[in-house]
């Protein structure tokens, strides 16, 4: 199907191109084509773009959800009231992982113990461990992969 031009000039804008899948054109380093008057910056050869927190924190973007922690039950694991937890559902929950789980319809964040028996353990002596008995409505929602703790000023 030929691509019909959109501009009055009938010129197809080059950035729009034809309806294709991603081309495998190679990306150019940033600023490669700018020419400054005077001496070029000595840093120019070392430019790499900027750091992206998503890239650092989120390995599986489509499977990652954010939730907000409430209360002090996990303070021993450095999770405080109001923190944002990154929950990666693509990870298989393992012994000792901090997970978001639902128990009888309530969502909670706790440390998951698989041995000697299935237990959700708080990181605060105020809260006793919760042993998950057979027949309990229990499901792991996802594994907490990062904690975002913002300092207020």
């Amino acid at each position, binding site marked *: 199907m030929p691509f019909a031009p959109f501009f009055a000039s009938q010129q197809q804008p*080059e*950035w*729009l191109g034809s309806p294709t899948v991603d081309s495998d054109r190679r990306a150019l380093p940033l600023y490669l084509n700018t020419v400054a008057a005077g001496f070029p910056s000595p840093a120019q050869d070392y430019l790499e773009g900027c750091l992206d927190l998503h890239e650092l924190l989120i390995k599986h973007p489509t499977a990652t959800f954010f939730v907000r922690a*409430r209360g002090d039950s996990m303070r021993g694991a450095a999770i405080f009231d109001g923190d944002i*937890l990154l929950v990666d*559902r693509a990870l298989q929950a393992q012994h000792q992982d901090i997970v978001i789980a639902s128990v009888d319809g309530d969502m909670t964040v706790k440390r998951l113990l698989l041995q000697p028996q299935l237990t959700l353990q708080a990181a605060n002596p105020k809260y006793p461990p919760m042993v998950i008995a057979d027949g309990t409505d229990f499901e792991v929602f996802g594994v907490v992969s990062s904690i975002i703790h913002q300092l207020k000023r």
Partner: protein
Amino acid sequence: MHPPTSTPRCFALVDCNNFYASCERLFRPDLKQRPLVVLSNNDGCIIARCALAKQLQIPMGAPLHQVKALLKQHRVAVFSSNYALYGDLSSRVMQTLEQLAPKVEIYSIDEAFLELSGVEACQDLTDFGQHIRQTIQQQLGLPVCVGIGPSKTLAKLANHATKKYPQFAGVLDLSDVHKRLHVLARVPVHDVWGVGRKLAERLQAMEIQTALQLARACPQQIRKKFSVVLARTINELNGTACLTLDEVQEPKQQIISSRSFGQRVLDKASMQQAITLYISRAAEKLRSQHSYARQLTLFLRTSRFQSQDPFYGNSVSIHLPAPTADTRHLLQAAMPLLDQLWRNGYRYAKAGVVLSDLCEASGLQTSFFAPAPSERSEQLMALVDQLNQRQRGSVFFARQGKDGDWQMQRKFLSPAYTTRWDQLPEVN
């Protein structure tokens, strides 16, 4: 009629089960055992039901005030439609499918066709279907069914059958001819893709009751009596793929206008032009099927396949103040969305527009605050379409200013769990 292709094709239809209801349940484990329904805009009538609500025989499309007593009696959880949530989860489903299958056609908010030709050489197709199902269940917590077949019509039919027959465990592959005949014999003809209720009545008058009987009808005769489209359906039912991954044959519930750019887009002005174009196209399609849209979604992303570039992809939706098919109204709504989405410094590879929550002219509900589409607007748009039909691109729209916003009635709206920082789910 297309000649049969030499290599056998293979398609899958992946469909989310009770999608809106499943989305509402994702962050509400307390509602797992409770029946649940979702209401249309302005909380008018029921547009989605979970399996439990279906068992209670709460009718689809019933106005809320008519079923209030029934809902109360069975402690049914009621939600206003939360398209921000559904849209986000839908795009996660589609992106997950893109990671699993070589080619994906997004067919609606909760359905996608996959082209699997060649996959059968390296993996059992039923196993592959189960893999899709388990991946989406684990990563997104949404149940899906997978229908597989040598044509899109058969894939759709297989999907339909998985929902009726629990023994297939959510995946049915109709590549095998014997299996196919058994299933076709049990599917009523009105459940075949593209056969509506009216068409089914006419077919039944000709003693064609089941999909199998339709498959065995004479294509030439059907073509004469009905249409070339139905004749093509017969070929599709017999395992000959006539439709490729992008063609569709029924009025859409959702209109998507999207392309990968030939070259990466770096500046916002170019992106605005692209979005303007996509909206114009989508609105044109909308008008050609005589529909109006109540929901607009904008998305953009960089390439996923160039690891040296930072990835950014995002989407945002808005409820339109009134159902519209007017390009000007859609543009007006879209530009603030782009302002919200746009981040400088990325090399954008793809962008697009989705018009959803469509309604027909006859079923148009107007509100006190938003006037009905005016005759002048209809006339102007008709003229634009006419001019553009003669010579594409002869009339187009420039960016327009903002207008005020107002909230519609959404009394039972769940939080935008995945798209608003102030509405994240909370855990203790």
